[in-house]
């Protein structure tokens, strides 16, 4: 075990953790941050996406040693019901989910995309979201929601 420091949703965090433990386990098991979801444990489905810098990354296969010093954002850090992120607002407006288990990872992927590219085309949104799986078939609504959020952000 060793003390690992990083930023989580804007706050400085120090956890005493095994450097080889995965970030997702620390988020959920130690820090009670449950927005990032376990889906496969192999970095394949995107349910556990967190934002590191301006990149969406899988946290289920991200060892803690690699997190040290990084700036990590989970869906909890995007916004709240009182101060929603435009993406969160857009996902509600577009009713962009069915079960919603994949949605937190998709919100993070979309937020990272909009950081890098504030006005993506539909094809660019789809390409960015290809690393996230949705089993219920809400893809098109989610893409519409991301485009809606992008245009809202551009207008404000």
């Amino acid at each position, binding site marked *: 075990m060793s003390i690992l420091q990083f930023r989580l949703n804007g706050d400085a965090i120090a956890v005493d953790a095994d450097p080889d433990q995965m970030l997702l386990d620390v988020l959920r098991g130690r820090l009670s941050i449950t927005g990032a979801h376990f889906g496969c444990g192999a970095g394949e*489905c995107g349910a556990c996406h967190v934002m590191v810098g301006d990149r969406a990354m899988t946290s289920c296969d991200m060892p803690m040693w690699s997190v040290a010093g990084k700036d990590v954002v989970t869906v909890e850090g995007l916004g709240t019901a009182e101060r929603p992120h435009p993406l969160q607002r857009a996902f509600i407006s577009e009713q962009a989910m069915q079960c919603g288990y994949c949605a937190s990872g998709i919100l993070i992927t979309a937020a990272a995309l909009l950081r890098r590219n504030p006005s993506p085309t539909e094809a660019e949104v789809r390409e960015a979201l290809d690393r996230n799986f949705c089993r219920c078939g809400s893809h098109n609504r989610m893409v519409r929601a991301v485009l809606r959020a992008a245009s809202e952000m551009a207008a404000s």
Partner: protein
Amino acid sequence: MTSPAPTLPVSLAANPRLSSWVKLSGDGRVAISPGKVEIGQGIVTALAQIAADELDIDIGRIEMIRASTAASPNEGVTSGSLSIQQSGRALRHACAEVRQRFLVAASERLGVDAALLNVDDGTISGPGNVRTSYWELAGDVSLEHDATPGATAKIAARRAIAGHSVQRVDIPDKVFAQPRFIHDLALPGLLHGRVLRPDVSGARLIGLDETAARTVPGLVAIARDGGFAGVVADSETAADAALKALRKGATWSAGEPLPDEDDLAGFLKSQPVETTIIDARPASAQRKPAQTLRRQYTRPYIAHASIAPSCAMAQWDGDRVRVWTHSQGVYLLRADLAIVLKLPAEHIVVEHMEGAGCYGHNAADDVALDAVLLAKAAGGHPVRVQWSRHDEMSHAPFGAAMAIEVEADLDADNEIVGWRHSIWSNGHAARPGRAAQPALLAASEIAKPYPRMVSTNPPAANGGGGDRNSIPLYDFPAWTITSHRLLTMPVRTSALRTLGGQGNVFAIESLLDEIAALRGEDPVAFRLRHLRDERARDVIRAAARRAQWKPQKRAGIGHGIGFGRYKNTGAYCAAIAEIEGAEDIRVKRLTLAVDVGEAINPDGVINQIEGGAIQATSWVLKERVRFDRTRITSASWTDYPILTFSEVPAVDVEIIQRPEIEPVGAGEAAHGPVTAAIANAVFDCLGVRVRDLPITRDRIIAAMELAS
């Protein structure tokens, strides 16, 4: 002639006490307690709409109570697109009666005839500015009464909420990461469990060296009951590590051989079966066929593949146990748990929490028994068990593979004069709570094991199983429909969306398309000519109009149509697919028209149809459970790919709203029609019929080689 005596909706007849469905409190809140559960389909919102409408209250006052065997009405299982039909009708009736009871009480208090009173968001008012409210009267009006058949719900035209799109009540929590999923529930003192399952199919644990696992930090207990073994630890990380160590110490029996994945039809047709004549329409006049077309269609085993692996929690208190589950049927799960635990059902409380999208009988029930067994070793702590992705993709039941033979007798004009449809498939249901033996996986692993249940088919009255949608909706002069249900089950199967409906609609609609082409007749016109049901004709015409059927032929682009009425009694759906490509095809656009009768939440219906259409596209283009002769090999997303965002087609849905007709569910209406539409579009595009799902590059090349 007298009209028949009014009867209660079926769920209300089974659970007549009004208070079990509806509770009003003095503080302006209304608790609605359905027996059906949210599985990602938006049902709690639609049910809240129905209740708000009948009670004349704002939908924001309603709290939807999660189903629990402690208090909820027993509505069996949330499946078969029946929740609106069963729970919706019961709630509509119950709430209408509750409203009437409050009006009677208000009438007494205010001295005004109940017929003159009006309800607006729970405030009851009448002539002379008299007013009271549900909330003032809540203490006086008892709902500890059984529902009576006489209550009448609002007529369609007076419904202000049902029939209109509203935002789903669960989505804000999911967007803002408020814990709603069972996976995210933090119970005090929670421990974590993992179960040891074989890689080799049908293998049984016969030896276990626990030494290495015992040294894992954080381990709390190792549980063993015959062939069932698992670990309990103080964190998920520790539980995973302990399981890994335990696996190294495991000795397994030889397993049971699996079929040849590349000859599913050969396997299905070589097994002992139970044969049932599903339907026969004898020919009224013998018309001698000029020729008979014989075609065979297959679909593979398909995985539920929910994004979340199955999860449950259990906590023992003496000889009583409480279970948290995302099962589709809390009472049915409890019944199976009672058998395995040899406990009275009243000692077990099973309550529902949302899981990821559920498309049928997945491992939700299995993992609940796992949690209950592991929690025995946890000294009263709650234990949370979550399956691995690998186990979810290899040990959960699959949708059953099917081989379907259709023979069409054609006269000299290539008109259909006879039709024979035969199905070979495992049963499509092995749900818990329905038999004297449990259906739960661990029940077949424990020291005194129960036999593995061989799946059966629901009766025709419930829409059938392998035979679902096998009776043609078309006016063919004669037919015989036969179902052969396998009595062996080397690959575990149970209910997956549509049961046999997807395969049967694929077969029927493919052959119809082929006959229309043989005749040189437009496939839409051909279908319309053989349908008498105006609702069926309307969805086909609506889809055709919306897709501008039939667009001009262009190289590399194909269009196809498929139609079905789910279970032959539920939602009508027509789908038109536009595809492009050669050996690799891409579905560009799906245009659908659907008739569910009264669409309670039209946007919710569209969402379900879109989702069904996209999921069906994934099944058709990509999905197939893979196995060799000893094990399931498609146990990861790499080996079981599903449709990605870039591959998803545009989906355009039109609802034919019929407010006067009893509503039916939408969740399974699209799969069959979309499957057939894509297959027919492949023919339109490439001139070859692919009759084996999934329609992959290899299958298309094989069909082209066969045709040339």
